[in-house]
């Protein structure tokens, strides 16, 4: 049954029930580990033959289980994710891993651990800077993660297995980048919403299955089989923390625009940077994970400078966006902030400064991660897209 569907049909099948495949794998004796942030090194889980499952929110799922857990002033995205967990959607999990990427993540993992008992929990403390001595600490933290997985599964992890896993994930990431290459065409060969559907599907599959699915989808896209309608659409880059919900993309695509590029955790942020193959695979992992483009990292042009060069600072923090804008021929940027997000919230004026400095129109939108809160954003988006005409 599973082998009969390929490409986008398989994507739809996975999305209809993300747990179906994981339950099959569990029936074969595998264990599933949940996580909800791009800072969890999935390579280690894969190498241990564990199945990493990204926990997602659901904007249509009522938030009913949070009264004694997290307040309404907390990151509505994570609150929603945890709510879906507490409502039983991830009841197949055997373990959970959290990282101190931001405070909301740190609180989430602790509150989860206090409320639901699993076989395995791991919390990865991590530095907020790129200081070399912080990186040392992070490397030790990764070693601990590895040994804690070993203790749980009772199996040692060899260097070869870890390297093979890193290679598998690098290949997986390069396939996602290949998919994104198809979005550089005008019109793009894959729409923003189809991209998100594909990325959501692979976020709950073992890495090699995800790669096979990506290959099939890329083939279909190249053949023009999943192209969105071809009328003249505005090419939009969406910047934000985690954009895992289709309504957020459809909001934009409803107005003759297409999300051709993103900088968020479901997409480019997670897949545009590989792990370097080094003699010591742990070192490669540490360098890669500390340097993702999330606003949570305190990034500086020169560590220990005596005078701050603002232009250089903006370049250090946002130049990757300029690169995306040029390569993907972006016509407008939508900054999509989840309310109560501090790391991205403080960036907004400077991010706008940067985008204005390269003369790219931009719009700041705040969402509360509920379908209802999207309606008032429509006028803003439509006006913005009309200014691009």
């Amino acid at each position, binding site marked *: 049954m599973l082998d009969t569907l390929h490409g986008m049909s398989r994507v739809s099948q996975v999305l209809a029930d993300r747990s179906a495949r994981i339950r099959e794998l569990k029936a074969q004796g595998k264990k599933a580990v949940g996580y909800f942030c791009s800072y969890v090194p999935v390579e280690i889980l894969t190498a241990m033959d564990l199945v990493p499952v990204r926990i997602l929110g659901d904007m249509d799922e009522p938030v009913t289980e949070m009264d004694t857990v997290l307040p309404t002033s907390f990151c509505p995205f994570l609150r929603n994710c945890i709510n879906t967990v507490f409502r039983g959607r991830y009841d197949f999990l055997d373990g959970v891993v959290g990282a101190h990427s931001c*405070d909301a993540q740190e609180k989430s993992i602790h509150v989860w651990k206090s409320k639901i008992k699993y076989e395995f929990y791991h919390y990865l403390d991590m530095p*907020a800077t790129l200081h070399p001595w912080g990186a040392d600490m992070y490397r030790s933290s990764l070693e601990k993660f590895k040994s804690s997985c070993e203790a749980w599964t009772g199996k040692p992890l060899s260097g070869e297995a870890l390297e093979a896993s890193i290679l598998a994930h690098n290949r997986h990431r390069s396939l996602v980048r290949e998919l994104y290459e198809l979005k550089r065409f005008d019109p793009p060969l894959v729409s923003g919403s189809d991209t998100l559907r594909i990325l959501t599907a692979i976020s709950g599959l073992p890495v090699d299955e995800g790669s096979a699915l990506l290959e099939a989808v890329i083939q279909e896209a190249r053949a023009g089989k999943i192209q969105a309608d071809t009328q003249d659409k505005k090419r939009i880059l969406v910047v934000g923390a985690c954009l895992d919900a289709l309504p957020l993309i459809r909001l934009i695509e409803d107005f003759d625009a297409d999300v051709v590029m993103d900088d968020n955790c479901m997409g480019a942020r997670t897949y545009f940077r590989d792990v370097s193959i080094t003699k010591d695979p742990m070192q490669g992992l540490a360098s890669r994970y500390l340097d993702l483009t999330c606003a949570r990292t305190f990034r500086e042009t020169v560590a220990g400078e005596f005078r701050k060069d603002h232009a250089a600072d903006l370049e250090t923090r946002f130049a990757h966006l300029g690169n995306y804008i040029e390569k993907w021929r972006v016509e407008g940027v939508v900054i999509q902030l989840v309310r109560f997000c501090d*790391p991205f919230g403080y960036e*907004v004026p400077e991010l706008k400064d940067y985008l204005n400095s390269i003369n790219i129109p931009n719009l700041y939108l705040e969402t509360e991660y509920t379908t209802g809160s999207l309606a008032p954003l429509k006028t803003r988006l439509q006006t913005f897209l009309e200014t691009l005409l």
Partner: protein
Amino acid sequence: MPTDTIKIKRLKAMYRLRAKVDDMYTSGLEAMKDGRPVAWSMVTWWHADPVFKAMDLEVVYPENYAAMVAASGKASRYLDLCDADGFPTHLCGYSRINLGYVSRMVNGCAGGIPPEAPMGGLPKPVMMLSHSMLCDARVKWFQSLGRYMDTPVWMMETALPGVEEWNDPDVRKWSLKLVMDEIEQFIAYLERMLGRKLNRDRYDEMLSDMITLSRLAYKTFELRKATPCPMHSRDFWSVMPPYLYMSGDLKDSIDCYQALYDEVEQRVASRIGAVEPEKYRLLFAELPPWHSLEFFDRLAERGWNFVKESWAYNPPRPLEGLEDISDPVERHARFHLHVATGYHADALADDEYMGYLGYPYVKFAKDYACDGAFFHGLMTCRSASTHHPYTRELLMRKLKIPSFQVEGDLVDLRLFNAEEALRRAEVFEESMDYYRELRQQEHFPADNMQPA
């Protein structure tokens, strides 16, 4: 007004300590006038303060300053400027005041202190120190000032291990190493910037004074377990800056604290309460409505005594053997690291993993024989609000102690409605009465019983 209304009995020794917060601003302003450098710092829970002190670099704390601006009723101008500059309105209220202040300083006052600024204002800094403990705002806020000032930011890291992780010697080892590395690197940075070396003996002396002061403060606050409680939270907040910010001269602060200790001890011996008769004993989380502190006077009239506050503003539990560590950097690092992890071992024994955001409140409510807990929800302060629903449930489940939540904000006066809160407080008394009886009937837990 009737003459026999209950008033909070303020401690005499408090006044000298309260005035010391002004020392910080006065010396900052004097430094500016003398052309000496001034730094801005986040609260670092003693990670950076002794270094600043030993390097003779004047420090002011924009978080504290923002609270002062809010309390003086002058916040709205800066908040409006911050909004106008495009910062999201849900960001930390303290940071929004500071961002608006800097926007005004740079764009409206040619880099000088705005004339209307309370307490003489904050002088423009030569460097700003961010710190990663407990809140993301404190990592990003100074960075976002880059669009106004070319002042460099040094970001100081700390480790934040979880409850179970802290039990692991490896985790302890690397956490300590990180905290020590950060101290050394920060010293090196300041030395390069100021062109002078740290006097290690002076640093060592600062550390000793800091530890002495912290222990003395801890010992003083422990006396508040007495019934009736001799010291109200309002006095606690007044005497907090000298040890939390190390404002003013440390040796003088130690003297002041000794006087405070003596006075509180005297009250305990004479069974004098800060609020008499003490009908209800309360725990307070986290930061008070600085602009409406008279709210507590109104509650005192009803016999409410506030006997304990969050661990985050209290001195850390004294760490044994600290004096025996010869390397000052290690001694310093262990002291700092103990702030957020000091209750972890007990929490683990209690199967409680929210760590510093869950367990300490249960311990305090029990040790200080509280009848209820007051949670001040702060719309724009995540760190002071995230744990409220969780911890309230914990207090009820483990101790049958009810709690009371009032919405407010750090600085936005519009969110805190004192009248409404007082109306609800009246109803909450019934709840405290009910659970007190219930605890007595069920002998739950025995050491939390109230004298009749």
